[in-house]
């Protein structure tokens, strides 16, 4: 069973595996429902229906991330391709997993691409980015970086 934070991580992983160099994630609290939007500049390798039949951005025989998101969102999701970018949007019930932002975002920021995350809830927007982590030496890959990352998240929150 995936939490909302797990689904965001799945989407980021999916974008990463599709070769994305930049990933932009938006999570918006719509009153008990999270609207998640993931925008990336990865390759588009989807053929046919992207969701129910286990289509993959990772090559034949791999990757169930999109199917998992489709199931978790009960079909409230879309995947579209623009000029040079892919947009994934889905809506899922709030399970409180964004209440612990440190543990929700640490795995997201440990991935290689540049990630930008915007979380909007109760009229307040919090923004997090790989560039901020670089500037603040807060990349959470070692003890001092994890401490700095924790402080960064708490400061934003």
């Amino acid at each position, binding site marked *: 069973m*995936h939490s909302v*934070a*797990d689904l965001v*991580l*799945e989407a980021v*992983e999916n974008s*990463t*595996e599709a070769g994305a*160099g*930049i990933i*932009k994630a938006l999570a918006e609290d719509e009153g008990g429902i999270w609207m998640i939007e993931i*925008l990336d*500049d990865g390759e588009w390798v989807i053929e046919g229906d992207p969701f129910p039949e286990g289509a993959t951005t990772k090559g034949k025989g*791999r*990757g*169930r*991330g999109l199917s*998992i998101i489709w199931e978790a969102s009960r079909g409230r999701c879309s995947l579209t391709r623009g000029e*040079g*970018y892919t947009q994934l949007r889905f809506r899922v019930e709030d399970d409180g997993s964004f209440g612990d932002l440190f*543990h929700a975002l*640490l*795995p997201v920021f*440990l*991935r290689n691409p*540049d990630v*930008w995350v915007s979380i909007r809830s109760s009229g307040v*927007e919090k923004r997090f980015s790989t*560039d901020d982590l*670089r*500037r603040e*030496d807060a*990349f*959470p*890959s*070692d*003890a*001092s970086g*994890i*401490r700095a990352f*924790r402080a960064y998240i708490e400061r934003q929150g």
Partner: protein
Amino acid sequence: MAKLSLSDLHAIREREEKNLKKRDIHGRTVHVVVAMGTSGIEKGAKLVLNTIADEVEKRGLDNVIITQTGAAEGRPEPVVEVFKPGEGLTIYGNVGKDDAIRIVAEHLEGGKAVDDLVIGHEE
């Protein structure tokens, strides 16, 4: 505040990369990799990764660097790999939260592999 487009983000990244301080992975003593593909996440790899990060931070293990990778195909996930120069690569499988704490305490800090969790070893 106006939304940033991907082209905006590309421009910002190019600008920031000039100021990037490259992190030195190879200078570290111990390298830990957690497999975070779909199947790993499904079986709790996120909790394992976060537990390892919490423990490394709590114990102040500055010689350890943590990274993550995609699926550990064909292995029992969650999978954690520990690389130590001179010792090689130790692969742990079916790792849960308590196992992750043991790996940090006994292997990363204590220097001895957690034998009952090991599923592979490469020199």
